[in-house]
C-alpha cells in the first residue's frame, strides 16, 4: 500500500484540475507546487547539508527578474527564464557561497539574510535595468490556469525526484556527513567547502526556476514581492520545517500546509469571521475580521515558535511521534 502512495497521489494531482474547475483552488494548487520546488531547494542546503539559509528570496527574485527582464528588454518569451532563471540564481549563489561558507551555522544564516537584503536593494536602486519599485509587468501567456497548473506540477515533481536522486548519490552522503559533523567530514577527506557549494547551487537552481515560473504565472513582480524576507525567505524555512527538515517529502507536505495556513489567515479563517459578522451584525467581529486578514505574518511568527518548540522535525520527521501521541491520547480516553 505504502509503495503505491506516491503513484496514487500523482494520479489524483493530474486529474485534479479536470475535476475541480474552480480557478481559486487551481490557483492555490499552483502556489503549492511553486512552494514545493522552493522548499525542496531549501531542504537540500538547510535540511540535508545543515547550512540554514535565510536568503532564499535572493535566488527566487533573481530567477523571477531574469525571466521578467528577458521579456521586458529583449522581447524574449519569459518561459526562457525557466532555464536562465535557475542559471542566474546559481550565478548569484556561486560568489556568495565562495565567500560566506567561511562562516558556520548561525553566521552563515545571517550572511544569507544579508544577501537577501543586498539583492532587494540592488533591484530597487538599479532603476534603468529593473524599473525599481515600479516593477515589471508582462503579458500572461495563457488565459486558463490549467497549463500553468501542469507546468508547476512538472516543476514540483522534478524537484522532488531530483532531490531524491541527489540524496541517494554519493553527493547526498557527503551532504549528510557535513550536516552531522563538519570537522569529521573534513578529516575523512571530504572537501566540505566544495560540497556545500554544490548543495547551495542545487538549492539556488531549483529556487530560481520556481521564481521564473512565478514571474510567468503572476505577470507582475517588484522588489518588495520577490525579495521579501517574510513572504519568501521565512516562508521557505517554514515550508521546510513544518513539513520535515531533511526528509524528501517534507517540503511537499509543508508547502501544502503552509499555503493553506497562509490562505486561512488571509481570508480571515476562510471568511468565517466575515460571515459571522454579517450574520450577527456585530461591529466587533467585522473589525476582528479586518485585523485577522492583516495578521498573517503574526500567525506565521507564532507558528514558527510553536513548530520549533513542539514539532522540531516537522510533520514528516515526527510522524511516528505524532501518531504515537495521538493514539496514546485516544487510548487514555478509551480507558477513562
Amino acid at each position, binding site marked *: 500500500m505504502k509503495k503505491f502512495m506516491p503513484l496514487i497521489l500523482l494520479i489524483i494531482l493530474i486529474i485534479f484540475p479536470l475535476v475541480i474547475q474552480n480557478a481559486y483552488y487551481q490557483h492555490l494548487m499552483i502556489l503549492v507546487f511553486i512552494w514545493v520546488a522552493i522548499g525542496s531547494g531549501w531542504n537540500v542546503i538547510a535540511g540535508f547539508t545543515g547550512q*540554514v539559509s535565510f536568503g532564499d528570496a535572493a535566488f527566487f527574485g533573481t530567477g523571477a527578474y531574469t525571466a521578467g527582464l528577458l521579456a521586458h528588454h529583449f522581447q524574449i518569451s519569459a518561459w526562457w527564464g525557466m532555464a536562465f532563471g535557475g542559471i542566474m540564481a546559481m550565478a548569484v549563489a556561486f560568489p556568495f557561497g565562495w565567500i560566506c561558507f567561511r562562516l558556520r551555522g548561525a553566521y552563515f*544564516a545571517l550572511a544569507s539574510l544579508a544577501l537577501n537584503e543586498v539583492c532587494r*536593494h540592488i533591484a530597487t536602486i538599479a532603476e534603468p535595468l529593473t524599473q525599481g519599485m515600479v516593477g515589471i509587468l508582462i503579458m500572461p501567456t495563457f488565459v486558463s490556469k490549467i497549463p500553468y497548473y501542469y507546468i508547476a506540477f512538472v516543476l514540483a515533481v522534478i524537484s522532488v525526484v531530483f532531490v531524491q536522486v541527489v540524496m541517494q548519490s554519493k553527493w547526498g552522503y557527503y551532504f549528510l556527513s557535513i550536516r552531522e559533523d563538519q570537522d569529521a567530514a573534513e578529516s575523512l577527506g571530504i572537501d566540505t567547502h566544495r560540497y556545500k557549494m554544490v548543495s547551495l547551487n542545487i538549492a539556488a537552481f531549483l529556487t530560481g526556476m520556481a521564481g521564473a515560473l512565478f514571474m510567468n504565472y503572476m505577470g507582475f513582480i517588484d522588489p518588495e514581492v520577490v525579495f521579501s524576507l517574510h513572504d519568501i525567505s521565512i516562508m521557505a524555512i517554514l515550508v521546510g520545517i513544518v513539513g520535515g527538515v531533511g526528509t524528501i517529502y517534507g517540503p511537499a507536505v509543508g508547502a501544502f500546509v503552509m499555503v493553506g495556513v497562509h490562505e486561512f489567515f488571509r481570508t480571515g479563517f476562510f471568511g468565517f469571521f466575515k460571515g459571522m459578522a454579517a450574520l450577527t451584525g456585530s461591529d466587533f467581529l467585522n473589525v476582528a475580521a479586518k*485585523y485577522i486578514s492583516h495578521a498573517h505574518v*503574526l500567525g506565521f511568527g507564532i507558528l*514558527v515558535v510553536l513548530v520549533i*518548540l513542539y514539532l*522540531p522535525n516537522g510533520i514528516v520527521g515526527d510522524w511516528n511521534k505524532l501518531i504515537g501521541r495521538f493514539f496514546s491520547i485516544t487510548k487514555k480516553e478509551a480507558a477513562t
Partner: protein
Amino acid sequence: MEVFLQTLVAGILKGGLYGLIGIGMSLIMGVMGIINLAHGQLMMVAMYVTFVLSHYLGIDPYISLFVSMPALFFLGVVIQKYTLNPLMEVDSILPENQVLMTVGIGMVLTEIARFIFTSDYKSVQTNYSDATFYLGEISFSVALVIAFCIAIGFTLFMFWFLLKTDIGRSIRATAQDKDAALLMGVNSKRITVITFGLGSALVAAAGTVLMPIYYLFPDIGGPFTRKAFVITILGGLGSTVGAIFGGLTLGLAEAFGATYIGMAYDDMIGLLIFILVLLFLPGGFKRLTKI
C-alpha cells in the same frame, strides 16, 4: 575639510550608539553561542515604550530609561526562560533552531506592534530634538551628544559589571567554557536568562536615547538587527571590546558613505564592510586586540 570633520563627528556619535547595540548582541552571542535575530525588534519595543510614555504621559525620553530598561530586561528574561531555554532539551536535526526561534519572536513582536500602533511613522518631539551647538565650524546635535554620553556611560558600566561583580564573572566564565563553568558551580541556565535580559536592557537603552532624534515604525527592528549583526561580526564574535570598535567603524563608514557616495547606499555600506571583513579579517577586530 569642514565636511570631512562634520562627517567624522556624526560618525563617531552614531558609532557610540551602535556600540551599545552591539554589546548587547555580543553578550548574548558569547554566553549562548547564538545570534539573537530579534535584537532590533527588542529595540523597537523599547522605542514604543518610550513613545507611549512621552506621548500620553509627557515623560521625558531620558527619564523613561528607568521604565524601558527594566521592562525590556523582564521581556528578555521571559523570552529566554520560556522559549529559548526549553529548546536546549528539544532533540532536532538542525542546531540553528534557537536562531530560527529568535526570528519567529522578532516577527511576533513586530506584528504585535503593528496591531497596536499601525504602520504609521511616530516620533517624539522634545524642545532639544532639533537643538544644536557649535564648536568652531562644526555643529553638534544636542540630543545626539547626550545619547552618545549615555551610551558611553552604559558601556563603561557594563565593563565594570563584567569585570568586578560576581554575576559578571559568572557570565564571562559561561561564555568561555559552559561545561567548566557548570562544574565550578555556576548556574549556567540562570546566567543565560540574566544575560538575555541584560542584552535586551542595553539595546533598550540605545533605542530610548535614539527616540528624540529618530522616527519610529514597526519594521524599524529589521535594519537594526542587521546592523547589530554586522557590528558583532566586525568586532569578533562575542567580544565586548570588539563590539565597541565594530560600532564605531560602522558608524563612521555609514556617515562617510552617506556624505561621499549617497544616502541610498546607507544599508549597502554596512553589508559591504561585512563582506570585506569576512574576506580579509575573518574573526574581526578581536583578532587584533586579543581581548
